[in-house]
């Protein structure tokens, strides 16, 4: 009788555990959960912000429908436009000049297999955004490409088009910190609560 009770108990517990996994899958995370720290979180975001506003990132997140070029972020020559998919229009598709890799030499087209702007239905503008605005925008799946916080970290840390910013080819300045340092600041920002800097922060 005692054996029967123990076996029944094991079966019951196993069933409950299995059911709990089926109904509530564990959330995938790639960041630690640290104590909430609005000051530390916002400070980390300010480092992230400086990278995102560097020409290597901002030039393809413009406020208008034309990409930007150069360290002075001037509007792309040739009247290039975003298009529906972010890859240009008609005979001015991005990949008509931009190859899968950078072409060596000054003033040669940089390249990546995914070269392009965000699509027309989600502009993901960086240009002109304050730290406060950009932090909130990045956290909003309706404005960030439908990404969770974990996916946002993964995008910043591992996406190869984002990674191009640190291998931009001849004559282009790098973002103000290394990619691992950048990814660490993104992770810290989110781990400490994903706070937006105050509206007055610049």
């Amino acid at each position, binding site marked *: 009788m005692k054996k029967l009770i123990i076996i029944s108990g094991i079966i019951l517990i196993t069933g409950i555990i299995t059911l709990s996994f089926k109904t509530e899958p564990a959330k995938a995370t790639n960041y630690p959960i640290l104590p909430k720290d609005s000051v530390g979180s916002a400070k980390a975001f300010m480092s992230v912000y400086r990278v995102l506003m560097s020409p290597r990132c901002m030039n393809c997140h413009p406020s208008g429908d034309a990409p930007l070029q150069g360290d002075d972020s001037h509007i792309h*020559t040739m009247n290039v*436009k975003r298009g529906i998919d972010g890859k240009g*229009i008609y*005979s001015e598709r991005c990949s*008509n*000049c931009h*190859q899968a890799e950078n072409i060596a030499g000054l*003033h040669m087209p940089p390249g990546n297999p995914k070269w392009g702007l965000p699509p027309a239905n989600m502009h993901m503008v960086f240009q002109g955004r304050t730290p406060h605005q950009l932090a909130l925008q990045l956290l909003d799946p309706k404005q960030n490409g439908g990404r969770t916080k974990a996916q946002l970290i993964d995008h910043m840390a591992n996406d190869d088009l984002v990674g191009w910013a640190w291998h931009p080819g001849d004559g282009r300045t790098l973002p103000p910190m290394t990619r691992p340092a950048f990814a660490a600041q993104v992770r810290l920002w989110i781990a400490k609560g994903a706070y937006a800097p105050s509206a007055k922060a610049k």
Partner: protein
Amino acid sequence: MINITVNGQRHDIDADPNMPLLWVIRDILGLTGTKYGCGVAQCGACTVHLNGEAVRSCVTKINRAAGQSIVTIEGLSLNNNHPLQLAWNEMNVPQCGYCQSGQLMSAAVLLRENSSPTDQDIDDAMAGNICRCGTYQRIRAAIHKAAAMQTGGAKI
């Protein structure tokens, strides 16, 4: 050997995979209608179609074109009777002519995707093709004419 199809003909090219497609087209295949302008994808004189897209062949390496289909100005139509070619001829578009094959190849993509382009559509599609003689107004007018010819039954 890199296999490419140019104007419907297959070619096995024995060349460095990093050789620009423009070099292959002009120097190996002898199709000299496509021009070298700037060499840095800034002028559009070297525009050809790679799987229907108007790529700048001066910066496109031959290995990107491996197994793909390329059309040059020589293959735009069978008898130089593409509506754009007819309109170009009728309106005496070229002056020196050097940029015109690139202009035509870009315009052909525009007309394929937009059968009735506005002036703005034309500017958006053609701003990457520079003409030092300044034939832009005639180019724009000829594209409108070709669009009308196409609507009237001519084939693109």
